[in-house]
């Protein structure tokens, strides 16, 4: 990470790297900050630490400084003290870096961001940074969301992550919105892409669609990557407030299965933008992007052979991946073959020349022994006039184990009974087990980390 910042800083130290409504930091400033953080970590003998900050301008030097000296940083999600105390215990973090008043005392040592940005300090001035061999692991820990159980720590190596940016071309004119948190792998992906291309990161906080739309308009965002759920909320917000359409040149989607109609909606909403999809996850990293505007992946990504950095295959309807930029393993769990094949948990089907995503294996609804995929039902419901958003999930049921349940956010002025009838009519030709048996009109769709939650919490 530090290497990417320093590469740009060497040729153009005054180039803007991070922009918020309040702060602008250049590549030169971030590289200097990272050096001081590296010195502070060395002087304090810190080899592992957690970060509880959301401001990208503060987090970036911490990540880059850690990568420079081979210390393992772990960005926490923006949760409350109880949740973060549990993370401190679960992931054995003795050191927490934060400026939050409510987190004092939850780790053995709580440091302010300024403590590390100050460098080694006058008493320890002139500290010599440790040599880190080129092939040594420069660790970084990413936490999973824990929606299917306790969060796990996904161990990455900055060398492997940076390898995935080798084909990124210089693009100093681009301004990328940070719509993900830096505790999420997708946020790291955006960060790596921006640093590798020498572009600027526009990082509003919090990172909800409403702040994202505001940042797009006020801070000149040209490129943005977000989940389909985020984009749907953002489009709805844009239509609702009637403000100017942001001048986006690139719209990227990833992080969850992408409903086909959404690609068309985005092309209509942002007519000057290219629309592409990325397929990535905390465990296997990024696999590249699809730029043809069609749903799913090309079948060309399958069976590329041992020489390819990323290869995919389908096993019993589930996508498997082998990636040389993927994780090293999980924190506190046995070592794995980092370059080996791994199940993704994504159900897929081949239609023609495309691999289409049908949802997560963990999201499959077992209705009396019949396996039902939520996504195709959601797509069908979303096409009903008056439906703004839809969520399909399994609702426990004594008769059949589960039934297909549906929550719908409706457009203003929509009659609930008329809409329910229209939804039923739209689903009437589905297999009986796939028809929604419980339909509720709701104000909001349950999400986790800007993705639709298709399992009951």
């Amino acid at each position, binding site marked *: 990470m530090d290497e990417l910042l320093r590469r740009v800083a060497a040729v153009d130290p005054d180039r803007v790297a991070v922009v918020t409504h309040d702060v602008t930091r250049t590549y030169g400033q971030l590289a200097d900050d990272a050096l001081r953080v590296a010195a502070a970590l060395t002087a304090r003998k810190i080899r592992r630490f957690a970060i509880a900050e959301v401001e990208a301008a503060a987090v970036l030097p911490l990540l880059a400084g850690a990568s420079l000296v081979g210390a393992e940083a772990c960005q926490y999600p923006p949760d409350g003290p109880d949740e973060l105390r549990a993370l401190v215990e679960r992931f054995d973090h003795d050191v927490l870096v934060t400026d939050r008043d409510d987190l004092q005392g939850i780790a053995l040592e709580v440091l302010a961001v300024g403590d590390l940005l100050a460098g080694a300090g006058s008493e320890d001035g002139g500290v010599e940074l440790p040599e880190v061999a080129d092939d040594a692991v420069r660790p970084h820990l990413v936490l999973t969301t824990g929606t299917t159980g306790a969060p796990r720590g996904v161990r990455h190596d900055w060398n492997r992550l940076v390898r995935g940016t080798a084909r990124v071309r210089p693009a100093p004119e681009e301004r990328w919105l940070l719509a993900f948190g830096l505790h999420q792998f997708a946020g790291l992906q955006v960060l790596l892409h921006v640093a590798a291309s020498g572009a600027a990161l526009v990082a509003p906080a919090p990172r909800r669609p409403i702040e994202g739309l505001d940042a797009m308009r006020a801070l000149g965002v040209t490129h943005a990557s977000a989940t389909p759920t985020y984009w749907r909320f953002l489009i709805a917000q844009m239509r609702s407030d009637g403000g100017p359409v942001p001048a986006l040149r690139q719209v990227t989607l990833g992080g969850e299965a992408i409903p086909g109609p959404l690609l068309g909606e985005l092309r209509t909403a942002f007519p000057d933008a290219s629309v592409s999809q990325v397929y990535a996850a905390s465990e296997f990293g990024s696999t590249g992007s699809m730029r043809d505007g069609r749903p799913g992946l090309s079948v060309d990504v399958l069976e590329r052979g041992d020489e390819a950095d990323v290869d995919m295959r389908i096993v019993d309807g589930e996508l498997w991946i082998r990636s040389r930029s993927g994780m090293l393993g999980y924190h506190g769990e046995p070592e794995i073959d980092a370059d080996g094949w791994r199940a993704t948990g994504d159900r897929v089907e081949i239609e023609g020349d495309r691999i289409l995503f049908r949802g997560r294996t963990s999201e499959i609804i077992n*209705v*009396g022994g019949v396996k039902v995929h939520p996504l195709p039902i959601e797509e069908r419901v979303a096409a009903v006039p008056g439906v703004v958003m839809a969520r399909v999930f399994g*609702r426990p*049921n*004594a*008769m*059949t184990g589960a*039934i297909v*349940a549906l929550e719908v956010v409706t457009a203003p002025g929509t009659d609930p009974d008329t809409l329910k009838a229209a939804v039923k009519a739209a689903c009437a030709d589905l297999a*009986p*087990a796939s*028809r929604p*048996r*419980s339909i*509720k009109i709701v104000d909001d769709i349950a999400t986790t980390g800007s993705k639709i939650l298709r399992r009951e919490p």
Partner: protein
Amino acid sequence: MSTATADVQKTVTDFLSSIEKLPEGFGADTPLYADGAGLDSLETAELSATLEDVHGSDPYSVGEMPQTLGEILAFYAGA
């Protein structure tokens, strides 16, 4: 909504009407399945969810298998 007999009866008859399975002369003793209303397992699951949504509980979720409207009404009367 309350669990008063009239309210529960309305929920059941509205549900059967919505799936076009309300038999003529439907009453407390009309069988819900087979030769009566003819509910299949998925429709019964849907009735269970509907009763729970409207009245806060339902006989199926506590392991009962009411055969008639009368038995559903008895569940709420005894609750």
